[in-house]
């Protein structure tokens, strides 16, 4: 396996591992309010007035950011 293949494999596995608790504990990196078109950092409550809060975008951002972090990359080098 080449280094880039190892990194890509670690990224995919780390993404899947982080994605599940991110959803369960709502560790969203961002919240989108579609009715107002507003983005908030982290978990934000719905704005009211029938405007829902969308967390899924944040669910994708959180594991993307965390699985790209140097700690995971280091583990791919040592494995």
């Amino acid at each position, binding site marked *: 396996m080449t280094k880039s293949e190892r990194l890509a494999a670690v*990224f*995919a596995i780390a*993404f899947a591992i982080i*994605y599940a608790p991110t959803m369960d504990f709502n560790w969203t990196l961002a919240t989108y309010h579609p009715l107002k078109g507003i983005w908030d950092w982290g978990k934000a409550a719905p704005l009211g007035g029938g405007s829902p809060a969308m967390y*899924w975008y944040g*669910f994708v951002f959180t594991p993307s950011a965390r699985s790209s972090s140097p700690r995971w990359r280091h583990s791919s080098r040592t494995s």
Partner: protein
Amino acid sequence: MALSGAGSRTGRPQIGRKSMQIGWSILLIIHGILAVLLLGAITHQAIAAAWPAAKRAPGFFNSLRSVNGMSYTNAVVVLFLVTFVLGTIIYPTYRLNVRTVLQEYHLYKPEGMFEMKEHLLALSLALLPIYWLLWRKPSGDNRVARTALTSIIAIAVWWGFLTGHIINNIRGFGS
């Protein structure tokens, strides 16, 4: 005169809403067409990887099995990314106009299918780099991994396509 003036004032937001609806519908159609192309490409590749033909022979299934999987890789990656991005753009419209209706009518199964679609496609997105790298230099050593990854992505794409189709049947264009 005053009446027609008032009419045009109230009509303008309706025209704006109508053109917005047409715009979302066009994006949804493009999203659907790209999904069909992606479905075709990934299905051909998955079948060729999982059930390769020993030698070229006539017939539909033999032709399907003997396609060169490598030639689909870049198309799959590009189609997946573009379809995914388009999906994320039209997602708020689903959240506001469709999901609320599904909940009102207690249509929890299609709603749950859509939740699964989100998760399967997000996980498939993370598989794309390793998928691309393995298909770039296919060998006997990585055949099992390539086949497994391609099959997982193919299942996710099929799930996403069928779910989108069902949701569109429940509450689609202009409803």
